[in-house]
């Protein structure tokens, strides 16, 4: 079944003022940034208020939308003319965008609240909240845009917010470098997105979804594939998929709430959004582009999981896990309408449990003087009971423990991929097993076993403003997956926006693949308990086997980038500067010097002796006379 047509919004209601969702946090950011120190006292409350207000608008718009007939659930709201003849600024309110809005504003608001506590000692807390609000606004623009240009504005807007927040502690050189790296790598992806837009415009004469999507089928096969692959490049950049994954691990330099919001729950899923949004047009079922998406997804889910197994930094471990989970989403998004609902379901439930895990990690770091090395943790479940319980629920959700969120959504993905392509399906099962291993390792090293704390560490449970968001997130991590997947709720809800398979799938608990997945997860978890629970965990990182080092060094991704791009780039730059100064400017200055030199030699003729001047006059006269004589006789 195809998605329904996009209608111009005519009626009133909250949908007409959906722009408030974007405007409110944007105003918040503007007030905090322009207001300066005057807003230090109450700035964070304003930011929280704006984020919550955006959530309220999103929720109202959601209720208005589900009140409509399914055939009318895609409404575009024109806001203002942007580039005449190319694109306008407008919003598309449909089930897909509203689902994202709810996720962004709800999780975003919780993380705002959490940050009040987490950032309470930071002198620049106001700036932090301004950037958070800016991020929420940009992310909402990204998902609400009704054309590629407005989407791209949001796309780069979240990139900017991510840049600012990764580099929030900019006085740390590592943070500054990580921020720049994230931006530049994202720009490589943006290159793909830009060129995709150029092709779309040259093909269809428009960048509005409403005009491009219906016409997409008329473009030639090759062009469609090219657009799809270029969009995928953009998605890879934003979602840290292979081969543009390298920035995400470094991005953990940012404050932990940022990692939770931007680099786990929302921004990094924008790539999945892009693929699903353009799916009906450029990644149709069985297309080459779709196949490449699934391959990228599987490769990344395995790579992320492997990286996760070897990290001692709790945040980097979670970052590897994020890569891996987004890989799952990509994998599902690549198989067409059968996978979209599962991709989005996993995206939403992942948004909750990964935010829960990151904030839990933040709570642990808060307790441990910002220590991130898990080898320095151990036995924290006694001192941080709330953090432990909520983290543990998130852990169960991510490994797919039966009946929790991840169980339903991940199993849904594996199940639907299995129908599509068995090899990819089994690889996804393997990934689930590795997930079981690295997550168990993380929980065991952090909360169980003996204390390996630094002498100065005096862990204490976080204040209520931090624990309540954790509790709420963990509650959602328990039940959300079942709610979305059972009786295909999300699939039916999303159908007007992304289409759905002719036959709705039946959720079959404990089918062969499901059991196999559970078995592998159990094996992974068991291995982790044996290796890290039973045996002593050394405080200093051991050298590790070749494979461990391979995983620890992010599968040599950075080394590869360095060898392939950075070093030749530096060499090229040096050469270009030399060429410009000595080559081009050398020619110019050489010409100048040549003229100067020859005139310098020529002026030596002016000796100052009257007699020689007189001689030259005579000679000249004689030559002239001679010439006249010769010409005259001819």
């Amino acid at each position, binding site marked *: 079944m195809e998605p329904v047509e996009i209608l111009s919004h005519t009626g009133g209601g909250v949908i007409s003022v959906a722009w408030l969702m974007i405007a409110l946090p944007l105003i918040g950011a503007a007030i905090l940034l322009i207001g300066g120190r005057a807003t230090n006292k109450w700035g964070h409350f304003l930011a929280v208020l704006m984020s919550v207000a955006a959530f309220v608008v999103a929720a109202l718009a959601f209720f208005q939308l589900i009140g409509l007939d399914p055939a009318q659930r895609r409404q575009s709201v024109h806001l203002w003319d942007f580039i005449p003849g190319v694109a306008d600024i407008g919003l598309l309110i449909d089930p897909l965008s509203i689902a994202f809005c709810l996720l962004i504003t709800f999780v975003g608001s919780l993380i705002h609240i959490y940050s009040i506590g987490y950032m309470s000692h930071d002198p620049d807390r106001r700036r932090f909240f301004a950037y958070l609000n800016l991020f929420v606004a940009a992310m909402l623009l990204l998902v609400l845009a009704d054309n590629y240009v407005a989407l791209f504005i949001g796309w*780069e807007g979240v990139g900017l917010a991510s*840049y600012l927040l990764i580099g929030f502690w900019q006085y*740390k050189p590592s*943070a500054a470098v990580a921020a720049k790296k994230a*931006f530049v790598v994202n720009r490589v992806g943006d290159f793909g997105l830009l060129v995709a837009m*150029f092709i779309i415009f040259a093909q*269809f004469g428009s960048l509005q979804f409403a005009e491009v999507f*219906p016409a997409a089928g008329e473009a030639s096969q090759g062009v469609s594939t090219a657009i799809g692959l270029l969009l995928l490049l953009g998605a890879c950049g934003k979602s840290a998929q292979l081969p543009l994954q390298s920035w995400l691990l470094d991005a953990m330099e940012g404050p932990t709430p940022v990692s939770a919001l931007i680099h786990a729950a929302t921004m990094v899923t924008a790539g999945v959004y892009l693929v699903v949004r353009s799916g009906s047009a450029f990644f149709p079922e069985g297309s080459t582009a779709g196949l490449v998406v699934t391959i990228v997804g599987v490769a990344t889910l395995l790579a992320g999981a492997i990286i996760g197994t070897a990290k001692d930094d709790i945040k980097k471990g979670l970052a590897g896990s994020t890569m891996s989970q987004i890989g799952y989403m990509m994998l599902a998004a690549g198989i067409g309408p059968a996978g979209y609902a599962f991709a989005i379901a996993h995206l939403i439930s992942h948004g909750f449990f990964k935010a829960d895990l990151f904030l839990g990690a933040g709570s642990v770091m808060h307790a441990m003087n910002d220590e991130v090395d898990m080898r320095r943790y151990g036995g924290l479940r006694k001192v941080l009971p709330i953090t432990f319980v909520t983290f543990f629920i998130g852990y169960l959700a991510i490994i797919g423990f039966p009946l929790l969120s991840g169980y339903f959504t991940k199993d849904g993905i594996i199940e639907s991929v299995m129908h599509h392509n068995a090899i990819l399906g089994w690889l996804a099962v393997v990934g689930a097993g590795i997930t079981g291993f690295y997550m168990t390792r993380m929980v065991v090293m952090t909360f169980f076993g003996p204390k390996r704390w630094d002498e100065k560490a005096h862990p204490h449970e976080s204040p209520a403003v931090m624990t309540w968001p954790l509790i709420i997130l963990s509650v959602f991590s328990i039940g959300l997956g079942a709610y979305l997947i059972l009786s295909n709720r999300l699939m039916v809800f999303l159908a007007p926006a992304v289409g759905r398979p002719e036959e709705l799938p039946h959720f079959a608990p404990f089918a062969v693949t499901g059991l196999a997945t559970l078995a592998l997860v159990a094996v992974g978890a068991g291995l982790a308990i044996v290796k890290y629970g039973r045996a002593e965990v050394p405080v200093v990182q051991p050298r590790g086997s070749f494979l461990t080092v391979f995983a620890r060094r992010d599968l040599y991704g950075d080394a590869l980038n360095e060898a392939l791009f950075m070093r030749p780039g530096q060499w090229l730059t040096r050469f270009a500067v030399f060429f410009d100064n000595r080559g081009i400017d050398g020619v110019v200055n050489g010409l100048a010097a040549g003229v100067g030199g020859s005139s310098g030699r020529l002026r030596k003729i002016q000796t100052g002796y009257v007699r020689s001047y007189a001689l030259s006059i005579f000679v000249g006269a004689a030559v002239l006379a001679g010439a006249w004589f010769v010409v005259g006789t001819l």
Partner: protein
Amino acid sequence: MLELPWLSFLIGLSVVGAIVVAFLKNDKVAKQTTLGVSLLILVLTVVMAVQFSPNGDRFQFAETYDWIPSFGVHYAVAVDGIALVLILLSAILVPIVVLASWHDAEQGKRSVRTYFALLLVLEAMMIGVFAATDVFLFYVFFEAMLIPMYFMIGSYGGAQRSYAAVKFLLYSLFGGLLMLVAVIALYNVADKNSFLFPDLIGAVTDPTTQKWLFLGFFIAFAIKAPLWPVHTWLPDAAAQAPAGAAVLLVGVLDKVGTYGMLRFCLELFPDAAKWATPVVIALSVIGIVYGAIVAIGQTDIKRLVAYTSISHFGFITMGVFAMTTTATSGATLYMVNHGFSTGVLFLVAGFLIYRRGSQFIADYGGVQKVAPLLAGAFLIAGLSGLSLPGLSTFVSEFMVLLGTYQRYAVPAIIGTTGVILAAIYILWMYQRTMNGPTAESVAEMKDLNGRERWVVAPLIALIVVLGFFPKPLLDVINPAVKESLVNVKVTDPAPVVAVKEGQ
């Protein structure tokens, strides 16, 4: 519409202002007078711009007087949408530059009031050069503009100022003389006993003649723009000029080159322009990538900004010569946006350099900690340099690339890599100057003061507003560009797949 000689009045006002300022005794009064005059000009220009009707005649506010009747030379001024936005750009930048250069002329070789008088003379020239509709008059302004700029670089610049000023002058004169030959030849070939631009459209029909005349004009404009490989004067001139002069040099003077390409090269010699397009597009693409790569390798802030401009001028010439409505309108908008963007970048860099007394990136570090506002302004300026969506430069860069792709796909794709390189040169510079541990030498650095905030704020506001709402400018530019392209006899390529009308 009020029938006033707006343009002559604007030019006259700045000339009179310059004379008054030159004879004032007190430097402070001279500065204030300059600021007042330039603000008055800005107000008048805005009033004029509001009265411009985008869908009316192409040339409005026209005035024509005989100057040298025996040769058909007129004093003829008028504006179309393209010229109007560029005059607006000049009128906005001058008061900001005046305010920004408040203390810049104090170490100069000549007096402070001379500097400000020169600024006003330059403003007169800038308005005149964009408004001239007589080719000879245009040439006069084109060359006369060099003189105030020569003195501003040569008398108030950095250590290498003489070298830079002479290089700038010689480069420009070389191109200018070629253009003079072409102007005279055009007059003779056209045989209309008139230098008026509208009379000369379509006057040259012989293809070979067109090519020669095109080259005469084009080389002059390419040097001015500057297009690769005749760009090397710009980094020297921009790095040595005082920040304010650098803004006008790169922000406005160089635009005369790209403006001239669009107005004269394309419309007077359409066939030759199409003949030269492959080469020009190739040079532009080289310029985009080359300028960006060399910018990455710079160690001097101002030279770095100058090289980014070379990259940006590649985008502009590419858009002009792509000859699609989107690309050429985008290129025109780019000229304006680049003026604001480079303007604020040079000015903030100037504030930074004024405080520390060094142009070298390596002498900075961690400024963000001690001067957050300065760093913030620098970041926004930089982000506009890398065409961040939401800022005005994105709109124009996007339009140029989008329009170019319609006709020349491969150059557009190569040009798009400039987007990645831009992120590297801007953010790396920002990281090295503003981030990291605070260098000892900048630990005492003061943040932006009131005057400097007034310099930066209007530009940033313009950049942001135009980033989301470029329509007012595009509405003025689009009809003019369309008419130009009609004169060039090109039509936009149609989409491959026709979109169904009415959704």
